[in-house]
């Protein structure tokens, strides 16, 4: 019927401007910057302000632009393939993100499942308890683990007090600390969509399965898990994508051997002040992430279409 098909009302000029505002904002502050990043990734480092060449000077007009384009090169990208540091960083970022996502899922699923199975009256409180850490500072939550994981930190003190270990475990400044940091920081991102899909699950489906002779543990695998898959996929994307480019966690919890591309980019930019190379690093990172981002968007769209 007509209700489903919106006819756009005639818009006044003011209305059009109002609509254009957020659009223009995103074009200027989100899309244009990427084009600039791409452009600079084709430039060379220089001791100047800004520290790269050629700098496009619009005052020189068309001729200047053409001149600048001639000087563009893919040298930075070639450099990225030649220096093992970069591609190792990319690979290890993806590996670390994937392993962390797996652990997040293993820890997050029982939590989301427990929440969905808890009495109706508890659920809002439990939900708030999951969301609350999300509102507190990311930096603080990562920082809190330093005191725990240090050699003389609380975890080692506790384990030695119990007599489980004699020597302190070296966890901080290793990849294990990075896994812990990512799992801890991104756990709410996975639990929330998963809980949403588990909560929607109709309890009578499980009763029907049992009624038809399926034992509860089997019903869990045959009914609950397949029906919660959209939530699992959404949650995993929400952990994996930002984890690949993570900077704070590997920087604070990881060691000097922890290679992650976000950290490499940061160092390249702030310590080496090589803007063109860090731009090239960003462009490649973006290209790696475009695939999961597009997959994620499509999946979300499919879900919302199914519900709508």
């Amino acid at each position: 019927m007509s209700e489903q098909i919106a006819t756009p009302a005639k818009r006044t000029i003011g209305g059009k401007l109002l609509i254009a505002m957020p659009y223009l904002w995103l074009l200027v502050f989100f899309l244009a910057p990427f084009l600039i990043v791409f452009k600079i990734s084709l430039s060379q480092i220089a001791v100047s302000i800004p520290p790269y060449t050629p700098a496009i000077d619009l005052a020189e007009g068309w001729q200047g632009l053409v001149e600048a384009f001639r000087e563009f090169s893919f040298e930075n990208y070639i450099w990225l393939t030649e220096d093992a540091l970069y591609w190792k960083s990319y690979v290890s970022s993806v590996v670390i993100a994937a392993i962390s996502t797996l652990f997040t899922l293993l820890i997050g699923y029982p939590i989301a499942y427990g929440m969905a199975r808890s009495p109706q009256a508890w659920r809002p409180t439990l939900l708030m308890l999951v969301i609350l850490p999300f509102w507190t500072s990311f930096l603080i939550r990562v920082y809190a683990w330093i005191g725990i994981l240090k050699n003389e930190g609380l975890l080692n003190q506790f384990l030695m007090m119990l007599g489980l270990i004699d020597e302190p475990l070296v966890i901080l400044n290793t990849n294990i600390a990075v896994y812990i940091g990512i799992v801890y920081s991104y756990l709410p991102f996975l639990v929330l969509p998963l809980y949403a899909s588990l909560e929607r699950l109709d309890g009578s489906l499980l009763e029907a399965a049992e009624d038809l002779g399926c034992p509860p543990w089997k019903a869990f695998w045959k009914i609950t898990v397949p029906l919660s898959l959209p939530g699992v996929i959404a949650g995993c994307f929400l952990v994996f994508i930002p984890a690949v480019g993570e900077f704070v966690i590997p920087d604070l919890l990881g060691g000097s051997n922890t290679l992650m591309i976000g950290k490499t980019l940061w160092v390249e930019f702030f310590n080496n002040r090589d803007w063109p190379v860090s731009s090239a690093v960003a462009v490649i990172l973006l290209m790696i992430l475009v695939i999961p981002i597009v997959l994620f968007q499509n999946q979300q769209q499919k879900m919302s279409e199914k519900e709508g």
Partner: protein
Amino acid sequence: MTRGPTWFNITSLVLGFSFLYLPIVLLVIYSFNESRLVTVWGGFSTKWYASLLQNEQLLDAAWVTLRVAFASATIATVLGTLAALILVRSGRFMGRSLFSGMIFAPLVMPEVILGLSLLLLFVAMGTARGFWTVMLAHTTFAMCYVAVVVQSRLVGFDKSIEEAAEDLGCPPVKTFFLITLPIILPGVIAGWMLAFTLSLDDLVIASFTTGPGATTLPMKIYSQVRLGVTPEINAVCTILVGLVTICVIAASLVTKRQQVQRERDERAAFGADG
């Protein structure tokens, strides 16, 4: 799902929430530690809070952060609400998929990329970096979060309510302020709060886009954390965590109370027919 929790469910909830909260609880406890050695308990003390008040650099950073957060959250709320309206209400328009892509991408985009790209934009525009550039950067990514929050509120909105207002003689713009905005206000407020805390927390984007004289609190904390854990930082963190916790709990209590009241009213009204 309606079935009761098993012991497995309860255990996983207890362990899960301990994992989520233990680090923060420990951090709060050790902020009251007398000893300078953060991990050795030396008795209860509030001296680190007192010394915070002497630390002018930290207080300056906090002031900058609050200003940035307030300004960017406010602008982001306006833009994000508009964006949500466009996403939900406008049918097809030129570049719609580009628009929705630009709204959703920043939610998952690594912060290093956002920060770097915005910095390079400001450099290309020749803008002096400082308070304003951080504010603009925060506005940009926070508006996307606001858009998503407000959008979820708009999806359940009965459009005939707006049509009713127009039918009764109210022009569209007035309808927005008299009818639409009051109804979606909880979503808009939640969006503002989210934008505010996102700006308050952000380290990476602020580090890229800031300039002299505009050091934010997370940047200050970060530079001190790199030197090691100190009780003073624990104290700052405790204050931040406390503030956010109080705000979130207060907000959820208010909504909860409204909901309970509403349900009670509805039950009272039910059965009044006949």
